[in-house]
């Protein structure tokens, strides 16, 4: 590890500014492709991102091959989740009763605003004005930090990646590795401006150490702590949190007030069910057999208080969507993101939504069908996301189903509709289709590059077109089988 800045300091000719995410304007549809293009135009960022995530995917594969029961585990994980979701009302009541018996205060929030209000009330009742937090996608979904800031509560993220994103005033770009789209030079720049680290030192151990030193006093002085929840266990009332940094345990165990923010879909019925998910979560996410810390909170620390806020925010409604309810099985491992060629090459911030990548494509439209109407088209439908999903969500089929829903609701742009109409006309006439394919193959083989790789051909942007076959299948069949094409 050299002391020489590897990412290039802002003055160095090697420096490449970090591409920013999608532009969000109210309810206007997010233009994922536009943001993706800017990410692709930053080759050092794009390559680091692609390589890093593909490495995680390969490590996941190594873990999978080392576990003969992997496919059986996936089936069990899916069955447990589906069973729980089909009895979600009773399992929530059981969880509530057991958590209360353990001395936990249980709250229910219909939506993001109610969640944020409850958290603020709990903090204010204790006079707490500083809150240390571990990473929680739900609090991102609810916009908690912004609401608490308005009320004068200082929130400090304690996960390194999430802290980098907080200090850079940017959303997390990935559910597991929030700052994966940043280079070390970007982090050095953020830390130099915010926590006073050496702007010319972008050595990752130095940067992580600087953040540790800067955050430790904030942890020791915080008046309240907050965590998310990876799982809730109905029969024991346990809240389970998985981290690698141990930061959730600091947030929950150092201040005497612990608030848990949990989606209602996080339930599992029995303690033993955890084994299935704990064995698969980190293997799927990072390719490690388990996270460094798997913590089970069943009650407050001695002398302290523990609160759990159960949040709906559209989940109960999604439960009633026959094509999409199984997206509630998601355990937020991020494996679908790591494997997705579109995600790896466009960056999580290009989706302009809390949840990015394949799982985001099928969750985000349930929050706002108009704003996220373009997202289900940011996929090649190759099915890799479905294959790696540890809880067997049919992600690529749901992406396709969302396209149909959004087109029927006219939530797609005119150009896409016109192109689809033309394609529909072509596919409806076999003779015309075959003629078109032959012409296209000939054209691809003989046209000069500028005629293929230009602004009019979106499929030729940033990648090579496939080599056209010497003949079509119909031509081959006619030649070899002698049938009339």
């Amino acid at each position, binding site marked *: 590890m050299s002391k020489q800045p590897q990412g290039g300091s802002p003055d160095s000719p090697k420096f490449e500014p970090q591409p920013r995410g999608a532009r969000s304007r109210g309810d206007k549809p997010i233009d994922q492709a536009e943001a993706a293009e800017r990410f692709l135009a930053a080759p050092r960022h794009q390559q680091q991102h692609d390589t890093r995530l593909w490495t995680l995917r390969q490590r996941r594969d190594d873990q999978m091959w080392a576990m003969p029961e992997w496919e059986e585990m996936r089936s069990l994980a899916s069955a447990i989740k589906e069973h729980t979701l089909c009895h979600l009302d009773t399992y929530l009541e059981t969880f509530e009763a057991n958590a209360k018996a353990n001395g936990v205060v249980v709250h229910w929030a*219909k939506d993001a605003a109610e969640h944020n209000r409850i958290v603020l009330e709990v903090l204010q009742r204790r006079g707490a004005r500083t809150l240390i937090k571990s990473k929680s996608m739900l609090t991102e979904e609810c916009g908690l930090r912004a609401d608490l800031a308005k009320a004068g509560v200082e929130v400090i993220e304690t996960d390194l990646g999430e802290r980098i994103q907080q200090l850079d005033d940017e959303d997390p770009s990935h559910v597991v590795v929030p700052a994966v789209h940043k280079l070390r030079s970007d982090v050095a720049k953020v830390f130099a401006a915010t926590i006073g680290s050496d702007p010319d030192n972008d050595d990752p151990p130095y940067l992580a150490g600087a953040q540790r030193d800067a955050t430790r006093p904030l942890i020791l002085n915080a008046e309240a702590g907050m965590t998310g929840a990876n799982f809730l266990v109905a029969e024991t009332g346990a809240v389970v949190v998985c981290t690698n940094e141990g930061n959730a345990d600091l947030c929950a165990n150092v201040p005497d007030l612990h608030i848990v923010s949990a989606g209602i879909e996080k339930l599992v019925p029995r303690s033993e069910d955890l084994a299935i998910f704990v064995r698969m979560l980190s293997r799927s996410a990072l390719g490690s057999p388990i996270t460094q810390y798997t913590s089970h909170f069943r009650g407050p620390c001695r002398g302290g208080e523990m609160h759990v806020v159960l949040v709906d925010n559209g989940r109960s409604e999604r439960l009633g969507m026959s094509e999409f309810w199984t997206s509630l099985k998601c355990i937020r491992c991020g494996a679908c993101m790591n494997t997705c060629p579109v995600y790896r090459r466009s960056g999580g911030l290009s989706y302009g939504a809390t949840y990015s990548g394949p799982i985001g494509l099928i969750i985000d439209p349930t929050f706002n069908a108009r704003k996220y109407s373009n997202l289900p088209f940011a996929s090649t439908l190759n099915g890799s996301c479905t294959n790696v999903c540890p809880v067997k969500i049919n992600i690529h089929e749901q992406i396709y189903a969302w396209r149909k829903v959004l087109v029927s609701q006219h939530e797609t742009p005119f150009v896409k509709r016109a192109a689809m109409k033309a394609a529909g006309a072509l596919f409806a006439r076999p003779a015309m289709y075959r003629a078109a394919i032959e012409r296209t193959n000939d054209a691809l083989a003989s046209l000069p590059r500028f005629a293929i790789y230009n602004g009019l051909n979106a499929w030729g942007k940033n990648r090579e077109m496939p080599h056209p076959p010497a003949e079509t299948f119909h031509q081959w069949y006619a030649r070899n089988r002698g049938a009339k094409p």
Partner: protein
Amino acid sequence: MSSRDAILASIRSNLPKIDRPLPALPEFDDGPSADLTEAFGKALARMGGRLLTPDPADDGRACIWGLIEHSWLVCSATPEVAGEVDLAKVADPRALADVDHAVVRACCGVAETGSVLLTDHDLKVNALAYLAQHLIVLLDPTDIVVNIHSAYARPEFRERRYAVFHSGPSATADIEGVLILGAQGVRSLSVLLAPRNASVPDQAQGAHSTQWGP
């Protein structure tokens, strides 16, 4: 209608009308490693922790001493090792902010993942295992179970307010995937194989002479 009732009513009106039984779970321990201790040690090393096996002539004292000889502050949650902080008198976890080495005995180890299971009962003050710079865990080799399934069969998950698997030191790879140990919590995790000593007196008797340590 309260939010609770509204959410439950919304769930009930949207429940999928299908039958999905809760499956019985196998233990997946048909082919356990012949040597659980060896498997445990290898798994722990992969997670960035280290397994210390004391010399047969030593009951662990030399091993522990080697780790804490130069420590500026030792805090022990087990009566088997003497520390310099009386955890019974710690009312605020922040008092442990300067601890260099923490020592605790684990309920069990997990061969599959190299994890040790710690509870509020073992730690006395939960934050000890995260505020300390280094964590030393005593583990009886007979307490090592095959895998995570067998670990979840243990009573701690129903009986303790806090139970946690530690599978290595605090770690992060959030900057370009570069692995860094000591992210927010302990910088190192050492697991020392040490049989539970039946002759160790409990703290009430306070017989320091039979304890290990400084």
